[in-house]
């Protein structure tokens, strides 16, 4: 690794720390501004049963969680803990937040990976098919699919799939995390909106790329239709699709909340729902930090990938891209396309 790259990475990690700190602070402020009392919510078991606990005992429990300290003291204590990678303990059941997250994370990672793989295949296939198709009506039909996929509520898609493929025709289980079969319906549900965004951005990128002069040149030199599509246009169209990777990760995380609830799966989404409902402050903060870290990491990886996909893009000030490669690709980069 060159020293320039090391410096770049150090700068990015510094920025990441800043983002995480900001996320932590904003969450802290919002949670503590809420008027309700997390301890009272916890005593109702998250279902809001009425409890008539002795006020002195209630105060003791608040003190145990440090909720009676002045706000700056609480903030400093929480920040200090977090710096030592200790996210505290859940208010609702006393378990360490890191353990709760570690228990739930693998299931969500598996779901997200399966959904992403599916979405990538579906999205790329739809985009390629929509530009490949010679008939106008097929093209319009395929181009109409992504907006439809984006606008279908995940909740509804999930319930529809369960209804059809689990309750009516018992092909897949409706509940739980056990076995590959239980992953199919949730992954499909989660893949629908994600594949739609990929298809939308990629199709636009492909259309733009196919109108570029270098495609004419390639055709004139006798390149086949497939080669023009896959080798020349797709590579350039990938850049805008890459830029929405952060959005896709966001979609996957947000979608997990709904999908895991509908399919009764364990995971970060479910954990988030119960943490927010129970106003479990340490757990919510742990989850926000996790989400922020995932975003930061994704964006860093994407930025590092740009020069691999498009040698004209340089991370560093220095002239790293070779002149030969620059000469080959004469088109202007299509970065900046929006989804």
């Amino acid at each position: 690794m060159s020293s320039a790259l090391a410096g770049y990475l150090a700068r990015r990690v510094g920025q990441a720390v800043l983002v995480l700190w900001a996320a932590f602070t904003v969450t802290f402020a919002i949670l503590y501004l809420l008027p309700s009392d997390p301890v009272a919510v916890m005593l109702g078991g998250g279902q809001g049963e009425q409890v008539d606990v002795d006020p002195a005992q209630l105060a003791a429990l608040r003190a145990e969680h440090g909720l009676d300290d002045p706000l700056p003291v609480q903030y400093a204590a929480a920040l200090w803990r977090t710096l030592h990678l200790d996210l505290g303990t859940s208010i609702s059941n006393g378990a360490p937040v890191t353990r709760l997250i570690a228990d739930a994370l693998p299931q969500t990672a598996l779901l997200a990976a399966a959904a992403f793989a599916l979405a990538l295949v579906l999205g790329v296939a739809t985009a390629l098919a929509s530009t490949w198709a010679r008939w106008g009506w097929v093209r319009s039909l395929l181009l109409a699919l992504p907006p439809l996929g984006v606008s279908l509520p995940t909740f509804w898609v999930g319930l529809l799939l369960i209804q059809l493929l689990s309750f009516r025709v018992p092909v897949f289980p409706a509940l739980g995390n056990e076995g590959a079969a239980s992953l199919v319906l949730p992954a499909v549900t989660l893949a629908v909106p994600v594949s739609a965004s990929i298809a939308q951005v990629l199709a636009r990128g492909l259309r733009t790329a196919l109108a570029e002069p270098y495609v004419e040149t390639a055709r004139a030199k006798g390149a086949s239709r497939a080669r023009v599509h896959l080798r020349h246009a797709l590579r350039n169209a990938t850049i805008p699709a890459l830029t929405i990777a952060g959005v896709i990760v966001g979609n996957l995380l947000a979608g997990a909340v709904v999908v895991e609830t509908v399919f009764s799966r364990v995971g970060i989404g479910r954990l988030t729902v119960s943490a927010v409902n129970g106003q479990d402050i340490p757990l919510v903060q742990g989850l926000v930090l996790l989400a922020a870290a995932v975003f930061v990491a994704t964006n860093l990886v994407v930025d590092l990938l740009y020069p691999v996909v498009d040698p004209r893009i340089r991370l560093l000030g220095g002239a790293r891209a070779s002149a030969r490669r620059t000469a080959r690709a004469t088109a202007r980069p299509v970065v900046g396309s929006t989804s």
Partner: protein
Amino acid sequence: MRTRTPLLAVPALLALFTAAACGGGGDEPGSAAGDGTPVRGGDLRFAISVDSGCIDPQQVGNNDALNVGRQLVDSLTVQSPEDGSIQPWLAQSWEVSPDATTFTFRLRPGATFSDGTPVDAAAVKANLDGIVALGAKASLGSTYLAGYAGTTTPDAQTAVVAFERPSAQFLQATSTMSLGLVSTSTTTADPAARCDGSALVGSGPFTVGSYTKDSEVVLERRTGYDWGPTGSKHTGEAYLDTITYQVVPESSVRTGSLVSQQIDATAGIASQDLPQFDGNGFWTQRRANPGIPYNFFPNESRPLFSDERVRRALSAAIDREQLAAILNPGDVAVTSALSASTPSAPDDADLLAHDPDAAAQLLDEAGWVPGADGIRTRDGQRLTFTVTFWQPVSAVLELVQQQLREVGVDLQLKQATVAETNAVQESGDYDVLFYNLTRSDPDVLRTVFAQSARNVTQRPRGPVDDALDQQAATLDAAQRSQLVAQASQQLLQEAHSIPLVELSTVIAAREEVHDLQFEGSSRLWFYDAWIQA
């Protein structure tokens, strides 16, 4: 607005339904299939809707977790679901001092916790001391032990529990899972380890097999169990090998899973989905939750509801028969400040009659006259108030809203999260609170209404407080019932309590599931349950 089975409006039928529904232990409709001889073995998959992250019965407060915890622990006594009487379980017999401050329990010999240690007087003491030490974490148990002075153990089988002041409710409290006994190793364990089941050892008919948060709790049959409660249908070990509680948060998925038999039973079917499980290879059984029914609690520290006439008008404007008809099939109108399944609950139906004319007259007298839009006003102020709620009974509240509008009262409804609703309660900034409270002892009236306790309506001390405080110190059942009846009557006459509708728990199950029953507090009891092969 949905309306429901018109037949149920016929009073005679209502009475029949109540009798059948409160019968508890179950000749459920489905048991006609098969020859009715219990079969051992099998796994019963039961869907619950919420996982609060804790299955320790001494710490939890929500119904789903209590339904899990109930199977893990035994209690000193058991409350009959039929008549509310307190009967022997781990305690063979007991005596209560005449002033209701000292309770002497004699334990049955031979019962053990699943770690092999005996259920003895020392364990009783460790448990009660432990619950007091848990403090607010034992949200139910610690209130049952208010005024606890200590436990002494004259011998290994005798535990003497003393209170600083009379506590007649304690005997019923010993029948709840909240005061269910765990081994001494558990009483000294970290509360979090008790919650996740890793250090949770009881003497109950089932033990913790595994617990995965947000997913499932698996309970395993305790081998060698032979101390089931009085009133059980069999002796010895439970019939089921395992119970799997599957956490299914989405209501329509619970319904579909039961229809497609991916689960065997649940108590979480939405009322509009219940009719499809009546027959068709399924059975349903309902029982009203004892305690305080869904209630409006007027804030009497505010000018609007310090006026008794306004409170009474509100109560008279509500048609409770109509409210009962829109929730679960078989629900009946509430008849007192207590739910009818509460022991000693009186019948004050006449005080809760629907009388819109009387309501209008009371409001006229109080100076609230109909305004241009039909809503009454006084000194330019509209007769309006807001109820914040999270409970899944918006249909009921919307109907109340219509009924109140007919007499010129504007009820604003605000559906919120549990946290928001709590915040409103704590702020004290409300006109009316809305909630229910499950407890199978009439003392719940005192804990909610008495000036010396929560005093939810923030009213000044009155004659009703004498009745409420006296019943807490009265052991004689007849005398106590009379005091409870007196208190309920006074609470209703002056409309401190405005009951709306009873909450009931409904089990829906495949017809192969037998003898899954309600216990005295309308929580579930799996000891006698079995599955037809």
